[in-house]
């Protein structure tokens, strides 16, 4: 729940910047036809023999593969997302399952997967629409998946989609299923605002009241303040602190300046715009919104100038804080979906997978003072688990909740003192090189629909590896509750 910036405030700015953003050419990458896949497939099998491992894969680079003996290789066949939009824009009249449906339909369309092949569906979401609390199931039914395919919904704050993906990995690795769809959805344009507890209690009691007398006596207890609505909490439950506030304190703890934060945010927007212009954001599937135009691209990318950004007032710690609307991720609507399979199943179905999903970890720490340091803790753990080092990673995809959060994580990873005193390590984790870091933009610029971001991170890592010829990607994210996640994505050999 990175964007806890008051909605109206956020919206004001984004609207302004939205106009500033010139309309750019958008190219939707055409999809490889099945025949091309088949061709590549045969090439791949040929080179298989040269591998030392028993794994049926070959590596284009000299690095070893992370396949483990007696563990199924799990692959991403394809992953898509509908464009991520600022809350309160084109998706605002929809319901969460509508967005999830669109992502699922997009996945179906792009992969041509026979519906009956899908064993299971898992979706992540954070703020639940009470009518569709198992949004995975509602969306799957509506997207035309078989009603024989079970579905469940998971929640783990900003790493809900990561949890959906790793749950899928677990199910496949355990041999229970071969084909699982994982995804995530968030609709921040509409959130459940409830009656107050007192009002709810009264309404429930009224339901049970049998006689007119009982009802009247209940009604007589009504007070005007019962009508005060209850908004979904934007604050951490355990500490009552909003995430932006915590991010501001985190930035201050690591002495990250306002300018540095603005610069990083600007970088994110510039890179995202470049990626958008160059058509690199190929995970996007267009979405024809009922009653509106077809949405084809993200609308939160708004490269500005440092001068413009410097004018904004702090959004959380007033009047001297450093986190502003311009250097935070914004409230976003969006959904994503990914087709995950056991490698042999994918090959048998004739697919050319995009990447392997390898080792992953979840971490958690103090939700007050280390709320957003998940990546710092998760990164060394997942590298160790995979037997890799920082140098082995060709593409880093970190979730950008706030500029300050990313930069604080950098400082923490670059600090021996922090490593020794808080992580129980002898030396620092080390900095990810910036030229390999979120090269196609990040949550700050592309947007961050809480439940859906994880899939975007993995797909971006996979797509970047494919484009640049790298082998390993590292995905990391922080989440409310002081939790974090990291996963190694390995490029599928070409």
């Amino acid at each position: 729940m990175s964007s806890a910036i008051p909605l109206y405030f956020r919206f004001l700015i984004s609207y302004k910047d939205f106009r500033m953003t010139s309309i750019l050419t958008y190219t939707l990458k055409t999809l490889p036809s099945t025949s091309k896949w088949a061709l590549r497939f045969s090439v791949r099998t040929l080179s298989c023999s040269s591998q030392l491992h028993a794994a049926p894969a070959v590596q284009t680079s000299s690095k070893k593969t992370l396949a483990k003996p007696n563990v199924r290789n799990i692959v991403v066949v394809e992953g898509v997302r509908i464009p991520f939009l600022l809350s309160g824009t084109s998706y605002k009249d929809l319901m969460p399952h509508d967005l999830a449906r669109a992502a699922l339909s997009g996945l179906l369309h792009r992969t041509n997967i026979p519906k009956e092949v899908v064993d299971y569906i898992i979706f992540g979401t954070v703020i639940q629409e009470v009518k569709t609390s198992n949004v995975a199931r509602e969306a799957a039914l509506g997207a035309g998946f078989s009603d024989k395919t079970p579905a469940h919904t998971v929640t783990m704050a900003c790493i809900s989609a990561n949890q959906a993906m790793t749950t899928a990995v677990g199910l496949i690795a355990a041999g229970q299923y071969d084909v699982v769809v994982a995804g995530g959805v968030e609709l921040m344009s509409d959130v459940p605002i409830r009656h107050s507890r007192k009002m709810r209690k009264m309404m429930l009691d009224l339901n049970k009241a049998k006689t007119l007398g009982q009802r009247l006596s209940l009604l007589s207890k009504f007070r005007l303040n019962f009508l005060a609505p209850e908004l979904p909490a934007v604050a951490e439950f355990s500490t009552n602190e909003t995430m932006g506030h915590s991010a501001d304190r985190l930035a201050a703890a690591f002495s990250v300046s306002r300018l540095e934060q603005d610069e990083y945010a600007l970088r994110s927007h510039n890179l995202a715009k470049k990626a958008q212009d160059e058509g690199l954001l190929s995970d996007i599937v267009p979405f024809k919104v009922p009653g509106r135009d077809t949405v084809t691209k993200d609308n939160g990318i708004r490269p500005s100038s440092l001068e413009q950004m410097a004018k904004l007032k702090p959004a959380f710690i007033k009047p001297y804080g450093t986190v502003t609307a311009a250097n935070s991720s914004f409230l976003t609507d969006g959904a994503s979906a990914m087709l995950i399979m056991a490698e042999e199943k994918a090959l048998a179905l004739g697919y050319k997978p995009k990447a392997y999903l390898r080792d992953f970890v979840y971490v958690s720490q103090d939700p007050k003072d280390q709320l957003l340091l998940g990546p710092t803790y998760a990164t060394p753990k997942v590298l160790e688990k995979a037997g890799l080092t920082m140098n082995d990673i060709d593409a880093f995809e970190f979730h950008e909740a706030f500029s300050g959060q990313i930069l604080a994580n950098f400082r923490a990873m670059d600090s021996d003192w922090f490593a020794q005193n808080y992580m129980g390590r002898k030396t620092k984790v080390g900095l990810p090189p910036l030229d390999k870091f979120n090269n196609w933009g990040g949550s700050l610029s592309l947007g961050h629909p809480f439940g859906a971001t994880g899939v975007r991170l993995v797909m971006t890592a996979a797509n970047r590896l494919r484009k640049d010829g790298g082998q390993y990607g590292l995905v990391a994210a922080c989440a409310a509750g002081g939790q974090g996640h990291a996963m190694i994505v390995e490029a599928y050999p070409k």
Partner: protein
Amino acid sequence: MVASRAIGSLRRFAASRAFRPHGYIFRNFTGSSALLARTHITYGVKGDVAVVRINSPNSKVNTLNKELQAEFTEVMNEIWASDSIRSAVLISSKPGCFIAGADINMLAACKTSQEVTQVSQEGQRMFEKLEKSPKPIVAAISGSCLGGGLELAIACQYRIATKDRKTVLGAPEVLLGILPGAGGTQRLPKMVGVPAAFDMMLTGRNIRADRAKKMGLVDQLVEPLGPGLKPPAERTIEYLEEVAVTFAKGLADKKISVKRNKGLMEKLTSYAMSIPFVRQQVYKKVEETVRKQTKGLYPAPLKIIEVVKTGIEQGSDAGYISESQKFGELAMTKESKALMGLYHGQVLCKKNKFGTPQKEVKHLAVLGAGLMGAGIAQVSVDKGLKTILKDATLPGLGRGQQQVFKGLNDKVKKKALTSFERDSIFSNLTGQLDYQGFEKTDMVIEAVFEDLSLKHKVLKEVEAVIPDHCIFASNTSALPISSIASVSKRPEKVIGMHYFSPVDKMQLLEIITTDRTSKDTMSSAVAVGLKQGKVIIVVKDGPGFYTTRCLAPMMSEVIRILQEGVDPKKLDSLTTSFGFPVGAATLVDEVGVDVAKHVAEDLGRTFGERFGGGSIELLKQMVSKGFLGRKAGKGFYIYQEGVKNKNLNSDMDSIFASLKVPPKPDVSLDEDIQYRLVTRFVNEAAMCLQEGILATPAEGDIGAVFGLGFPPCLGGPFRFVDLYGAQKIVDRLRKYEGAFGKQFTPCQLLVDHANGSKKFYQ
């Protein structure tokens, strides 16, 4: 145990805020004499902002003493003289303390009120210069900012405080019987408004940073930081400094205004206070309340009102003069000396004189989930001790668990805890009916019913399951610890820990050691008590230990006085007007008549005539009629739910009539009645010191005031003897001895003091 319950409720009644010496305010600190190099104050310049850092050497806190003041004046003069400096930030280098107050010894060293007045005037002058500084000064406050520290801060142009629990602002001078003597009485009303200023100065309460912001006492808050590239506390101070420097610059550049937007209520209040008639009404009302609460026993609050009034009605010049004069007068009063004595005593009783225990107690078990047991569990889990609460029955255990939860939840309601912190603290508590997990406990505190055979049974059961190092502590108010330890396999590990009810409110813990209790056991018990936030006195074993033993003869005299026909209401008013927080008759009702009877019989057997006086028959008859006090709804008074003014129990008349003793006219004046009660208390306390039950008079004073509600304005029985004069006390005792008998015979120690004009405190 039950006796202590009642004593606790007694404290609850006490004009609770009127007296609670705070740990800091005036710290004892004598720094090294001023050297050439500055030792307390350093400063550096950041751009055009001077950062003045306060850091008294060899001390955990900064105190305003002579050297610090001299250095501060010197530094400020340099800053004012420098052309390259446009503003300044005042900050402490000590985490957890801005300035804890003025140096108490600076006042103690003064012989006359004129000298004290002079100290005050020096402070006033220094702060006036700050207030009129042409270069804006920002006070960056982290940690306690009390007394003189607060006065310094409010003389600055701007205040920024860290929003953490350690950062508190307050004017606790009143708790020492004095007033804010460095301009505080004049500046505070202007800053926060007259009503809020009165509240601060008359109660001495600590104000947390967020509240201070709302009141207008500080201008900005800085959130404490978590781990970064440095330890959190260190970085937080650095951050506070960075923010303060930004604001200092802004103030110098006139980009930030020192004016603050007042809320509607504030505007209304300040408007109302501009009307002379309203002001007069406010003074009158405040004065009335103070008189009612202090019964005229404490001069400081009234003087504070007077000084504030002078400043507002006659202008600041008159106000400052009045402030320093009254400050001087107050510092010389007996009340102030008594209260300062208590402060010193409290500091002493917050230390572990037995050193660090070999093994820190981390796992605690409490037996018995009654009022006391649950209370002990609450103050333990609160401080992170893993605590097992064991009871014999599920309903009993449930009640205890609920008590702990409620205690914590009340703190949530007062915003002292978050609900999450409550849950996490509550998770330290394990409720159970068996001895599971006792093999891991480091200390067991039993709080089962006051019955020797039951305590023996429990002790044996527990010793079968606890590890060798585990300490067995008994929470009893009267049973001798050596009798309890007599069945123990390892009496060196047995000790008494006498808590007072309600445990979470009462600060006192009386630790009782037997001849066989080991030093390490003692140091462990004290360490646990300190962790629980208690003020601790350590006494030798004996019937009634110290606290119960002092109370018993006074109770006997209460009965005697009632028998003489003084009605309970009159008796109550006589005792409260002497300074006791609860009237004597009400106290018996609160203790429980059956308990009082039990203790009186017990100790009466042991001590004989000295505990005589009143007829125990009175208590017996009350018990037989079911007048057990508040818990039964009837005692001397009738207690009804929701009825505030309690009425006398008219059914007592026949009991009084049957036991009536004719009063002796020459020793039955109101004053005599008061002194008959107090001298017996004091005599017994002195006896405890004489017999070695008490180690020091200071502990005796702390025990009496914090545990039994002995009038704080008298400073405790020993301080009272010193200030009132041992001779006078002995004379009184002799007079009453002549009239009533041996129960008034002064003990040898008092007689010695009277003859040799020795004092308990030098």
